[in-house]
């Protein structure tokens, strides 16, 4: 069912565009999972040690930014394909 819809979409728009869209969505899924995991751990860390909140949030932002950077690389590549 899903596969046939995907196949139809591929036929309609061309493999290149479909690949670009698929790549961008996969990148976003990956980044979402990654940043969610960072947020979860940071919240747990802050809950256990509220006095370290400042340090934890700085490092959280840095690691979230690094993941976001990797995801945006992927999206930029997909944009070039398009």
């Amino acid at each position, binding site marked *: 069912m899903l596969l046939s819809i995907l196949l139809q979409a591929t036929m309609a728009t061309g493999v290149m565009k479909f690949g670009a869209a698929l790549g961008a969505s996969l990148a976003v899924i990956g980044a979402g999972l990654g940043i969610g995991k960072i947020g979860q751990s940071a919240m747990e860390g802050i809950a256990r040690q509220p006095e370290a909140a400042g340090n934890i949030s700085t490092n959280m932002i840095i690691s979230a*930014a690094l993941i976001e*950077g990797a995801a945006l690389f992927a999206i*930029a590549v997909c944009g070039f394909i398009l």
Partner: protein
Amino acid sequence: MSKKIFTIAIILLFSLVSFADNRLESDSVAVATASEGKMNIPEFILEHIGDSYYWHIATYKGHEISIPLPVIVRSADGEWHLFSSSRFEHGHSSYKGFKISHSEKYRGKIVETSAQGEEIRPLDFSITKNVFALMINSSILVIILLLCARWYRNKGTTEANPKGFVAAIEMFIMSIVDGVIKPCVGKNYKRYTPYLLTAFFFIFINNLMGLVPIFPGGANITGNIAITFTLAMFTFVIVNIFGTREYWKEIFWPNVPWWLKVPVPLIPVIEVIGMFTKPFALMIRLFANILAGHSVIIGLVCIVFVTVELGTAMNAGMTVLSVIMTTFVNLLEVLVAYIQAYVFTILSAVFIGLSQAEPHHQKSH
């Protein structure tokens, strides 16, 4: 006291709503005339987030209200030309052999036609919309910060405490210095503080002005890859020029098992690639975030015009939805404006801090 704050918050909220309305108004007329039938949404969005030779404000009853900007070009025979972009009549006519291209390759750019009939790009130093907006925003920033600096010059830094606006700016600056620059750069942070603060406030004011939908704002400056490239280049140059001997040693001869360095220099190659991907990530991050924000806002505004064919009731409902969503996303983008400026500064500070590496003390006693 709390009542006062509440009133101010309400006034601010309403002024923002009226901003959103202004944007709607100016855009609606533009769309209505731009395409009598169906509107081409992707093209419309691209036109709004792109650069241009005149600053379009509104189209009123088919008459375009826009600010013409100076065009400075050097033609192929080495002659300089300076004229107003109003000579092009919004791309409908040519002037001195120059015209705004409609071809696939140089779409929307100034070209001249060579003897062979091909379109060639002259050297183009025009004050375009982005350049003009950059000048406006930079002057606003300089005025704000020099006013604060003058307060300190008059009163001295120890005698009195600043109040009001100056105090707010001081708090803002010190939060960046104490929260970002000091912990991330390390002990000789004072040397890099001017650059990092400049980068932060430059990005922040340009992000914010990009969110103001009426005239002096609304240009997509930090969502322009040339601007973010230049900013990232500054960080790249500072990191590599002021990098210590230890920083270069860690790139070309890191402390890893020897077979990772000789005969195939695996880790050094990865480190050298990392040297370039760090500023590249800075460039792409700021560019993509701001571009995406502008596109989403314009896309939400476009809902109004897309739903026209669905009937009046549907269109009215969707218009209300669109205004609410646009206001919401615009406020969200204020947050993004701060976060992106903050992230650029924090990552630049971390990269500079990494390049200030000190030699490790060997445990050899």
